[in-house]
């Protein structure tokens, strides 16, 4: 990861659409009065949905909206890698390269992205449709390797499969998200191999062993009752 800076070319202004403004206000309303700055991540996220990336005017608009210094919003925007500080393609591909995906061949997926999108991550393809980046675990290790295209996950990929998906999207189609080898969720290939007995799912059958006694169930970790709970501090007392 390199230092995250705002893009050199920035649009002149930013305003939330009416609908998005209502969503931001909804988020602000979730926090107690005077704590509206807690909505900063949501506001930036909604802004990114609207514009595709986080712009300087957006940071300043959010800061004014939530009564925060500009620098505080900039801190948040540069901290979270989910905020794009540069323009991205209409279809942004996030390729997981964390260990499980890497073991299962994410290098090929990256190669496919390089071939079909652009040589470097975070740069928009020639037709403006695509961009890609490497990300950390996207939480579908069982179906590794995987990519996330905008908000759709594509799992059980190979290099060729990735190319096919990208081609299909480029043609304007919407490939079916999920496992690309026909698995249902994260079940084994070809269907379940364990816990297949129907009886297991019969609600009339009960657990047959002796039930836990009260004493056993209430056997708490020693020492817990001696610990003191820290008193709650008011948030952001200094600012």
């Amino acid at each position, binding site marked *: 990861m*390199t230092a995250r800076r705002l893009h050199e070319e920035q649009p002149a202004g930013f305003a939330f659409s009416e609908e998005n403004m209502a969503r931001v206000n909804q988020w602000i309303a979730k926090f107690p009065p005077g704590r509206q700055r807690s909505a900063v991540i949501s506001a930036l996220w909604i802004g990114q949905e609207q514009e595709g990336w986080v712009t300087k005017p957006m940071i300043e608009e959010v800061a004014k909206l939530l009564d925060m210094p*500009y*620098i505080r919003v*900039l*801190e948040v925007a540069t*901290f979270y890698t989910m905020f794009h500080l540069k323009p991205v393609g209409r279809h942004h591909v996030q390729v997981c390269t964390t260990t499980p995906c890497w073991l299962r061949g994410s290098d090929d997926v990256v190669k496919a992205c390089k071939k079909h999108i652009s040589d470097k991550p975070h740069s928009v393809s020639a037709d403006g449709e695509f961009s890609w980046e490497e990300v950390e675990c996207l939480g579908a290790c069982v179906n590794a390797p995987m990519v996330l295209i905008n908000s759709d996950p594509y799992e059980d990929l190979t290099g060729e499969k990735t190319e096919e998906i990208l081609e299909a999207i480029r043609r304007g189609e919407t490939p079916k998200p999920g496992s690309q080898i026909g698995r249902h969720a994260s079940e084994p290939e070809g269907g379940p191999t364990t816990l297949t007995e129907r009886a297991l799912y019969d609600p009339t059958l009960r657990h047959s062993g002796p039930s836990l006694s009260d004493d056993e169930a209430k056997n708490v970790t020693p020492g817990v009752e001696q610990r003191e709970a820290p008193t709650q501090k008011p948030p952001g007392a*200094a*600012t």
Partner: protein
Amino acid sequence: MPRKLIIDGKEIEAEDNLTLLQACEQAGAEIPRFCYHERLSVAGNCRMCLVEWVGAPKPQASCSLQVKDIFPNKDGTPARINTDSPVVRKAREGVMEFLLINHPLDCPICDQGGECDLQDQAMGYGRAAFHRFHENKRAVEDKYMGPLIKTQMTRCIQCTRCVRFATEIAGVPDLGATGRGEDMEITTYLEKAFSSELSGNVVDLCPVGALTSKPYSYTSRPWELKHTESIDIMDAQGCNIRVDTRGRAVMRILPRLNDDINEEWLHDKGRHIWDGLGRQRLDRPYVRKNGKLVPASWSDAFAVIAARVKATTPDRMAAIVGDLAAAEEIKALKDLMTRLGVPHLDCRQDGAKIGGGPRPAYLFNTTITGVEAADALLLIGCNPRWEAPVLNARIRKAWLNGPLKIASVGAPVDLTYPAEQLGTGVDVLNALADGSHPFAEVLRNAKRPMLILGGGALARPDGAVILHHAARIARETGIIGPAGTPAEGGWIGFNVLHTAASRVAALDLGFLPAPASEESPGGRDVAGIVEGAQKGEINFIYLLGADELPLENMGRPFVVYQGSHGDTGANYADVILPGAAFTEKDGLYANFEGRVQEAQRAVFPPGEAREDWAILRALSDVLGQKLPYDTLADLRRALVADLPQYGRLGQVPVWEGADPAVWNALGTDGVFTADVPMGQAIADYYLTNPIARASKVMADCSRELLHSDENKQAAE
């Protein structure tokens, strides 16, 4: 409730609101730290303060662990803490190793070298001849933070002290940390300058050489410097400073710790004017001949003055004390002028309608520490952020930590804390005094209300009327309370905030126009002297470092300028007597609380310049009015005989209770000049006195921080 702890085998009782780090220090253990600072919030991110809590699975960060969270052992014995065990050493060595992965080894060219926390602690916890990181060190772009702070961000260890200082103490949240992990960078918002009057303090706070002083950069090493304890006179707060000198030059000025006055902060003007001490200096006497100032000897200069004094009657002579004079020379000038019979004396260059009467009528009576006890504050024509920035930080501290309600009559400015704006009209004082204004209710209901009268209120033609109404508000709302300190239950919330370091001493000494009597019409104040000079009724003016006067409108009186810098006063002078700046003489200064402190001599005056009291003493001999003191000690004895408080250095006067006669008679009842809005005492924070105006650093600050918009417009 105190808890027992065994720290390094020593059993101590620590209050449970302390952190473990503070408890360890009470037990005499020294805990290394980078991010922890006792006046800032706890961040707990450097991990250098790790200690061992026997029984806990991992070393504990002592700065963020509170004593109340440390439970005793199972058998009831107090918890045992080790601050220097093998576990602790290994843990701290590990932390140091991590810090040094990315810290450059550029100590030989680093300004922090010799006074660097990281350098010092690496001596204790660094592992010599042991390194296992062969990767490149990270490099970070340097940031622009204004004309005072030089950045070398590769050196930053991300303790965030500067960010916390800016947010919490200065109240100017301009600094922040962008990115994260290895890529975290301390920066301002997109290369904006850090626009606080306390910005220099982040240089002191920075434990490494990431933030260093721009004007001081590459000039000297800390071990070459001689330290002299002194007092800042750039405003009237009397911040305690240390003047660092090398040879005959002042190299830098740093704050000293004094919890009663400046804690450990210093404002930018006090810290950075030292380059002005070497510029524009008057280093020899001058006499005006044929319209031109030509160098002269002391005796020639004195002879010219003596001839002129002989030719002028005392009622056509005047003397004005400037803003930076010490008590000794004010006394010497007062004594000399009294002996000559001169009635037109004044020390209020700004024309403030204050002085005369007992001390509480013109002091900051609440005291600086007392501000923290206040729960309501009314600012009248006062912008403490410029008039006394360190006091402003104290007000902000009181606002942060307590239920302080603040309202301001005067120009709306960002004070770094919210203040209810009551407008710039003076009429609102009437409403506040008769209780019809909502804020009068707030003051009445407050337990310890206070008001501060600033120069913007007093330095007006109707200043005396404003003073009268302020005293009325004070009487009506319980601002003037019982005698004693706040701790004893006493309270006095009536405060005058002076901006001139010499002002309180001059008022104490009565350097004011002679009162009117049957024989004489009384002395003129500054405005009267100026008017008299225009009309030719005043022919001789003695200026003791007085430069903030409209001298260009004063006709052609004979002007003697005694001072350190060639500023306005020297331009219009007929005789110039070169004096010493505050770093070049031992002098007593009374701050706005009435606290008398001594500034000690750090260097000698340049050239033929002399200490100011000695100049006046020598001149008095030539004028045939020899002053009765030959040494500074004699002069101080005479001073203390008149004013005993000048013998009690560092002490603040205790509130002795209200004398109704005094408070009823304060100021004059009359009508406001209502069409003049309440202005500010200071037009440009960075350029308020001759030393600051001679300083290039201050000129840069004024241009880049206060007038950057105008410059941009001019460029376009």
